[in-house]
């Protein structure tokens, strides 16, 4: 066939990315949001105590999984609040969004 088929892609209809559910405003068009990279990267409390490798790890290294990925998103053209989302990097499905200060599980 002319293309590769991704049989592992979850395609449940009710989870999607083109509509994103803001924890405060509800489902909104994806174009209202901005992306803020991987979630749960904590800024070191004492950066100067780190060697270059440890600082580079914080600065540059990301998990980049093929599959579910916890991310930060901002409802930039809405309530302007940041929140977390769990997105599938292959299907772009988002199965969960939750406020920044809530636990992820």
């Amino acid at each position, binding site marked *: 066939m*002319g293309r590769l088929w991704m049989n592992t892609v979850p395609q449940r209809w009710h989870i*999607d990315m083109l509509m994103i559910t803001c924890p405060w405003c509800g489902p909104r068009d994806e174009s209202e949001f901005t992306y803020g990279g991987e979630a749960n990267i904590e800024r070191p409390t004492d950066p*100067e105590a780190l060697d270059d490798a440890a600082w580079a790890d914080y*600065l540059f290294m990301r998990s980049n999984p093929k599959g579910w990925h916890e991310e930060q998103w901002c409802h930039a053209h809405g309530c*302007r609040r*940041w929140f977390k989302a769990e997105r599938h990097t292959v299907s772009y499905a988002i199965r969960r969004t939750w406020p*920044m200060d809530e636990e992820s599980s």
Partner: protein
Amino acid sequence: MTCRLNQGGVIDRSKPLNFTFNGKPLTGYAGDTLASALLANNIHFVTRSIKLRRPRGIMGRGPEEPNALLQIGEGPSTLADQRATQVMLTEGMNARSINGWPSLEHDLLSALSLGSKLMPVGFYYKTFMGPKGWWERYEKLIRPIAGMGLTPDGPDPDLYEKRDLHCDVMIVGGGPAGLAAAASLIGTGLRVVLAHEQALWGGGLLASRTQLNGQPANAWLEETLAALHAAENIQLLPSTSVFGHYDHHFLGAIERVREQRPNAPIRERFWKIRCQRLILAAGAIERPIVLPNNDRPGIMTAFAVRESIERYAVLPGKQAVVFTNNDSAYATARCLLDAGAQVTVVDSRASAGTAAKAMLPEQTTVIYNAKVCDTTGKKRISGVTVRQTDGTFTRMDCDLLALSGGWNPSVHLHSHASGKLQWDEALATFVPQNDLAGVRAIGAMAGAFDFATALTQGSEVAREFATELGSKAGTDLSLPEVSHAEPGPSQLQPLWRVAGKGPAFVDMQNDVKATDIELALREGYRSIEHVKRYGILGFGTDQGKFGNIIGLGIVGELINKHPTEIGTTTYRPAWTPVTFGALVGPDTGELFEPIRQTPMHEWHVQAGAVFEDVGQWKRARYYPKAGEDMDAAVARECLATQKGVGVLDYSTLGKIEIHGPDAITLLERVYTNNWQKLGIGRCRYGLMLDENGMVMDDGVTARLGEQHYLMYTSTGGAARVLSWMEQWLQTEWPDLEVYLTSVTDAWGTISLAGPKSRELLESIGTDINLSTEQFPFMSLRTGAVNGVPARVQRVSFSGEMSFEVSVPANEAAELWAMVMRKGEAFGATPYGTEAMHVLRAEKGFIIVGQDTDGSISPLDLGMEGMISARKDCLGKRSLMRSELQRPDRPQWVGLRPKDPTKVLPEGAQLIEDPAAKPPVAMQGWVTSSYFAPRLGHAFALGFVNGGRARHGESLYAWDADAGVIPVEITQPVQYDPEGGRQRD
């Protein structure tokens, strides 16, 4: 000669419509397409093929039409490549052929038969792959020939609209399957949208003699549509092409509004549709059989002929040959006979199905085991040669050849979203696997060619989806009983092409022949994707709706493989061409992007200012007096600040108010320097870094109160800085109690710069003590100016004593006018952004984004003194990395051209030896460069490797246009390095 039948069809004979084709006045009826109206006037020959200049006629009936691509209308609203089969006829329409020079009838290029020699198969590949320069040689010859119509000669005068649409169930296709699905959802409370590509509902029913409940299908259609119109939960979108199906049930559609309401103010509407469930009932397209000389006008698909007769009451030929490999074309033969034509059926099979045979009277000539193997005629088919399996050849006259090689479901909307296809052996084509969650293809699109099955599928999937979505039961719909149905493409025996002499076209639009596919295979291409690209098969506006499956079948035969082993090409959006205007909608011209104007904008306009765009802002760049060019105006404006007072509209500067007990903590974390000791009423310059240690913004922040600060950002950086701080506060520092408010638009700011600025401000009237003792440099006072509340700041970007006066935006225009009136006595001169840039360059101040590019650290700028050792801040740790400590990194310097009149081009490279042979090592580059009026010579700023230790050294600026200019490296600050003038 008219080919219009006296009765029948769904045209409105009471509404004749006048139109022209290639200048000739003609008449059609309301309900006609441009194609049916042309055929009614006995016009088949509508264009010449793009490459070979062969006469071509109307062949299909819808989006698959490869030939009848016409130019419609004139001037700025002209439309190129309009498929005549999809254009509804309107009064006064002016349609023209696209190819044919000097005219369609007498084409010079076909006489020379240049085309075929110029463009062999693989032309684009062979040409573009080299040898170098060939394209330029060919282009001169090809451009006038390879026209695909004329572009409009002015801005599109029509209006367009974009709309979002959210629904529970989206149904694409208003034929029997789609209508039954929609009708089954009436009263469910679900929000249902039914889109149909055509102006008229009914799909295949409109060309059929099928009876529903013992009545002509029209009765059921009217009844169903009335019920759908009346239903509150159903939205009907006729004349709407769903052109793309994307991830997560997102669809794009174009509604041709004026097909339904000719006087509508907008021409087309772009719908962005999101649905929970999607029912695809997009129908199918009949494919022809490829045979030698299969492209003459008068050769059509069998269904196009049937629809012409049944729907438009047009008999496209009086002496017809119907050539088929399946049963569906027998209905075409029957309606040709009933319309008074002579008909011969040529069937490649040994026999037809019972239902097909029953369509025809006994005496009809049907030749089995036979193939049409050639045609004759110039601008219209005049005859065919039929070869029977026993080897006999029969030549017969005809003026119409109707072809049916089977039917291809229109699987595109399923494929767009990565839905899989499967080969249907009986139909010899691909059908959707229905593997997409929440999406179902039904009816002809799913290979169900009988109306009873289509209706049942529509009703069943509707009920299934309604149950899944938890809706209440809809109104009980009893499906109509189907009778007198025409046979579908049953008992098909695959026949892709008939061998023989003469060009046999697979893709009419691109003149791709069966022999071209053979050549591609001989040259080693195997993958259908490669064959397709090499031969440009399916690359036209029809996107291979006719040719792709046939091409696949031919490749399969040639390399002796089953089509599924070769695969199909990937169908991508758009299903049919989409108007750019519709995608853009109203976001064009003045509405392309918001335009921000300062409160004093009108004054600048009146003063004859030349404006420049800074982000979305319109800023006055300079104010030329009569006879002044930009350099003269800028020099005058600069010197005014030195001698008297210059007045700058500084309202665009970003302003963020910071409130809360942790405001100071935030400043400490985002700025490199110390904020603990800043007193109320004092200001401080701050440098903001990203986490990589690179400069991202700078500006002055003032302390207004115990827990209240006002941060100024660069004009372009305002939104970015606010978002940046918000992100840190919300994601990393939620424990800080700080509130950020953008107040950029709330205040209008007027900067008075120059030795007379204090006197001018005093003359305007203020209760703020302006003396240096009471109001020193780098402080802020609040009070009243000209009787309105004001914030006055003593900072300087120009190097001169300055007062920046901010008043509520609504008061700013009046204050500005007052400043200019009172200022006459002090030589007050408005100055623009250009002078502002020059003045700050003389002071060696950076402009973030002009001098820095995201790879410049404070160390590179020589600003290590701005970095507090006492605390951490964003980006600080990165500065400790060895790369950023390198002494030979590019460093901020001044550059003085040895010829004081030579202004260096910004962006010029700095090199050591102008005679060196490339590649030449770069020593640095120029970021800002002006003639500096206060210095009296040309001056530039830029970066030089290890430049701080190289003051006094000579380099050469090199620029492709300006050549080589010798320069001396200096310190960046040239004007008043001690800063006495600004502190005064």
